[in-house]
């Protein structure tokens, strides 16, 4: 007997998408000087959603000047008042949460279940958490007289558009910095809706400025002499480029970059829960997650049993309309990303690994990739070394705990890892020896504003979230 789901689409009526969006500079929406625009599409349907202003160097310059003006007001404001603005923003985001969720799903392609339950509530929570820090900065661990950097340039990716904005903007504002933010080229809409929230909250002009564009817009921010700190989330290659660009300047820099997280399953792990954790680790957000558990390290004697359960679970995953409340896997964010995932997965085939993909019906339009894993993967395979940023899992076996650690750490990345076992001492031993910034034990892909997030090695510089993330926006005694 098979159960069929009726479609349960979330209504789009709650959002109003303008045909054209301008830049948000100095508290107002202003047209770009060059008058250029680009389009943003719904990756699930390939429909054009809106035209977006393209910010060139002169527009970035204007935004930086506005941020310098905003800084004068913001950094001198009583910290408790600054905090109250952040509380206001958090509340308005909560009030308009469903609108944000639907818009995010349309622009990004991720399931409404995730935007509604994770992206948007967590974004509001980030503002709420950091609001409370604004008047307690002397307790942030960087000395008794911490100072903001000034104008912070922030460049964020397309995988969690509003959440990454919140991770960047909330701590920057709480610490008295002003912001020039560039959302990703393919997902600008929720950032522009956030600009409206800033207006509704009556945030002083110039404290938050949002410039839309592409890599050249980002480079203009990085290289602008009026910027005092850069915060970037994105690929490791671009992160290194930025690190070279700011070398020899006084600019601060924090980076959240790529990962190739190991999800380690020991023989005594509770297998049903573990399978849920593996699925959440690699298929959450279509695998567009820098901390994804993209390498499954499984103890050899339970591999067959675990993979059977995983296959069965993967056959239950529902891929399709992201606005449908029953959808587990939505659309890949762009054609470019789909091509990258496809190319890397093909390298898995050609290098001799064995592919299993869940049998999903792929919609006729839009960008999609079925949940997939590879067995017979060696550590030298590209799919074991490179970040795929898609729903593709590489399965590698191990025999001893020491071998698991060695294989888990055998990567230039060091962002996340998972460990599954019933034995407490083994969890702590494994966590101690893993070279990764976030370790999920008997869980995976959990996020919270109070919990520092960030990587070892080539996964980045600094942390976001918690006291450690806040401190990254403060200058103290060294």
């Amino acid at each position: 007997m098979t159960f069929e789901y009726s479609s349960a689409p979330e209504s789009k009526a709650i959002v109003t998408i303008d045909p054209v969006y301008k830049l948000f500079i100095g508290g107002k929406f202003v047209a770009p000087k060059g008058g250029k625009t680009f389009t943003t599409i719904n990756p699930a349907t390939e429909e054009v959603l809106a035209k977006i202003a393209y910010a060139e160097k002169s527009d970035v310059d204007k935004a930086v000047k506005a941020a310098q003006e905003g800084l004068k007001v913001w950094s001198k404001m009583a910290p408790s008042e600054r905090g109250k603005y952040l509380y206001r923003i958090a509340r308005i985001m909560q009030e308009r949460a469903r609108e944000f969720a639907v818009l995010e799903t349309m622009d990004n392609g991720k399931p409404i279940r995730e935007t509604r339950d994770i992206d948007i509530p967590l974004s509001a929570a980030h503002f709420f958490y950091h609001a409370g820090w604004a008047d307690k900065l002397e307790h942030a661990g960087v000395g008794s007289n911490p100072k903001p950097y000034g104008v912070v340039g922030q460049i964020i990716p397309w995988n969690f558009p509003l959440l990454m904005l919140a991770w960047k903007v909330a701590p920057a504002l709480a610490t008295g910095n002003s912001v020039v933010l560039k959302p990703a080229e393919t997902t600008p809409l929720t950032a522009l809706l956030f600009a409206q929230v800033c207006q509704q909250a009556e945030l002083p002009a110039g404290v938050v400025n949002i410039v839309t564009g592409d890599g050249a817009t980002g480079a203009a921010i990085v290289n602008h002499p009026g910027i005092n700190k850069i915060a970037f989330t994105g690929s490791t290659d671009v992160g290194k480029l930025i690190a070279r660009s700011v070398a020899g300047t006084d600019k601060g820099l924090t980076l959240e970059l790529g990962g190739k997280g190991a999800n380690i399953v020991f023989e005594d792990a509770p297998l049903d829960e573990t399978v849920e954790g593996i699925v959440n680790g690699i298929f959450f957000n279509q695998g567009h997650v820098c901390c994804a558990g993209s390498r499954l390290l499984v103890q050899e004697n339970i591999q067959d049993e675990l993979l059977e359960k995983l296959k069965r679970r993967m056959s239950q995953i529902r891929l399709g309309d992201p606005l449908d409340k029953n959808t587990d896997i939505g659309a890949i964010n762009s054609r470019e990303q789909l091509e990258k995932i496809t190319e890397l997965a093909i390298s898995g085939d050609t290098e001799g690994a064995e592919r299993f993909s869940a049998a999903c019906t792929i919609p006729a339009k839009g960008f999609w990739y079925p949940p997939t894993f590879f067995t017979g993967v060696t550590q030298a395979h590209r799919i074991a070394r490179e970040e795929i940023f898609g729903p593709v899992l590489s399965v590698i076996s191990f025999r001893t705990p020491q071998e698991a650690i060695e294989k888990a750490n055998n990567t230039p990345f060091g962002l996340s890892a998972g460990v599954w076992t019933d034995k407490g001492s083994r969890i702590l031993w494994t966590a101690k020896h893993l070279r990764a910034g976030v370790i999920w034990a008997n869980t995976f892909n959990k996020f919270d504003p109070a919990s520092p997030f960030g990587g070892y090695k080539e996964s980045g510089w600094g942390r976001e979230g918690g006291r450690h993330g806040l401190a990254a926006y403060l200058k103290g005694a060294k």
Partner: protein
Amino acid sequence: MSNSKSRAMRLDVKKTYKLFIGGAFPRSESGRTYEVTDSKGEFIANPSLASRKDLRDAVVAARNAHSGWAGATAFNRGQILYRIAEMMEGRSAQFVDEIIALEGLTPSAAKKQVEEAIDLWVWYSGWCDKIGSIYGSTNAVSGSFYNFTIPDSLGVVAVFAPAKPSLLGLVHSLAPVLAGGNTAVVIASEKYPLSAITLSEAIGTSDVSGGVVNILTGSAAELAPWAASHMDIDGIDATGLNSTLEKEVRIAGADNLKRISSFKDGASPQRVLAFMENKTVWHPIGV
């Protein structure tokens, strides 16, 4: 064996100033040395002019020593740093003499530098088992999870010590690196290297395992680019580099995203934290 006459003619047994790599005191594999003079230009010593290969050997030694040093209990590491202070105290006259000769300081100023350097080891010794309590955290996440963050060692750190004060400046950079559980490859003050070499001899008798500290003498300008591009170095204390070299090091160091810092101020737990990672662990709470 000897009479008073021959004793009066006795020649000093002078020290060969060598490198310190993996707990041993080799000469440079390159066979190169350079001349060090005192503050009046008189010959003092021919220390080794370390090569790129010596640097790479030192990094291998430091990498091999890292898991043991980082894995030692913080209390144990604190005791060993304290032991370095003890060993230095016994050699303080030698440190003072060398500082007077090379830096041209007065005896009292030289003595003050040595005393401060010894006391600085004692200060950082005490940080080893406290840095986690002060700068780690348990995090109140909204959900049924226990969540904590602890500082963790970075790995192998290259230290470019400032030219002078030759001993105190070196200890300001080296001690926090070790307190954080890292192993170090030190490039000593080029002009005033004797403090660093004598420090290596004190460290060699302080229960510091071989490879935890490696000290090279030679040209910072020659070695800095190799250190910056070395993929098995995780961090660099660039305090001793000029701004041109520091910029070069930061550009090349981006290849593996080295953590690079230089410091203007004195002793601070921030200098320990600059070469530590933060690790956050989540676990569900349940029965």
